[in-house]
């Protein structure tokens, strides 16, 4: 894939703008639903950046996993916990905000200084494998990265079982010693005074 230089620069600028403005929207917007949909837009633009970097496989994985799975999961979680609640005001919230923004800006200036002042040892563009990257990723995954690849599958299985166990409601619907059915609500209510903060 060879696009003209100007087109590349224009694509890069548009994608970066969408990423940064979308990320700011995710963080700052009042409504959490808008944030979730903007997050999907940010993920799509990041996939576009990957396409600019000649990595079509990772771009496809990004769209499938982030937009197709993680974002949908987040939207489902919002639907499940979306209750209008009046948040108690925190005292000295302004101090907190100012210190957070200061920390972020300081970190940002440090990072950008490193980015711009360091001399990166760029490889020559002639050695680039370009469109062959999917083949090369496959070679990596089944030769020198075989063990991490297999461990990742175990990790995904563990995460799946863990998520089911954590999110399931009727974990103990039978008492272990007597075998009689137990009301789960009672168990949750019994631990409530422990969990709720005493005013």
């Amino acid at each position, binding site marked *: 894939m060879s696009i003209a230089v100007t087109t590349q620069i224009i694509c890069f600028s548009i994608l970066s703008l969408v990423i940064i403005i979308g990320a700011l929207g*995710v963080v700052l917007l009042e409504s959490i639903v808008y944030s*979730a949909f903007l997050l999907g837009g940010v993920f799509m633009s990041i996939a576009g950046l990957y396409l600019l970097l000649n990595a079509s496989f990772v771009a496809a994985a990004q769209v499938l996993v982030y937009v197709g799975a993680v974002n949908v999961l987040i939207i489902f979680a919002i639907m499940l916990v979306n209750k209008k609640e009046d948040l108690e005001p925190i005292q000295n919230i302004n101090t907190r905000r100012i210190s957070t923004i200061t920390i972020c800006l300081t970190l940002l200036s440090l990072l950008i200084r490193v980015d711009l002042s360091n001399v990166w040892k760029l490889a020559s*563009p002639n050695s680039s494998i370009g469109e062959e990257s999917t083949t090369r990723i496959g070679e990596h995954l089944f030769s020198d990265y075989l063990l991490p690849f297999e461990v990742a599958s175990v990790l995904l299985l563990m995460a799946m079982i863990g998520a089911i166990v954590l999110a399931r409601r009727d974990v103990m619907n039978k008492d272990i010693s007597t075998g009689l059915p137990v009301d789960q609500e009672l168990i949750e209510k019994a631990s409530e005074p422990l969990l709720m903060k005493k005013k």
Partner: protein
Amino acid sequence: MNLESIPLQAFLTVSSILFCIGILGLLNSRNAVRVLMSIELMLNAVNINLMAFSSYIDNNLIQGQVFTIFVITVAAAEAAVGLAILLSLYRNRVTVDMESFNLLKW
């Protein structure tokens, strides 16, 4: 494709800005779902960095892209478990306000 047109520093700057926005959201938001979204933003910033380095510095072996695949895998697992924890927290406390999860506060 010759990548000389866009400098490497542009990609690094975008990812730095994205990472800092993620930290801002992580520290500043009170909704637990938004905190998880900020974590995803930060992971994506790291991914952009890895991809940029992989195609500018290591453009023959592209190990950065393999790393990105693994980061995406771990991020998906993290999101699933994180949201499950959030659901069970919500079931117990009937709120998603980060300020009310203070059982371990000294």
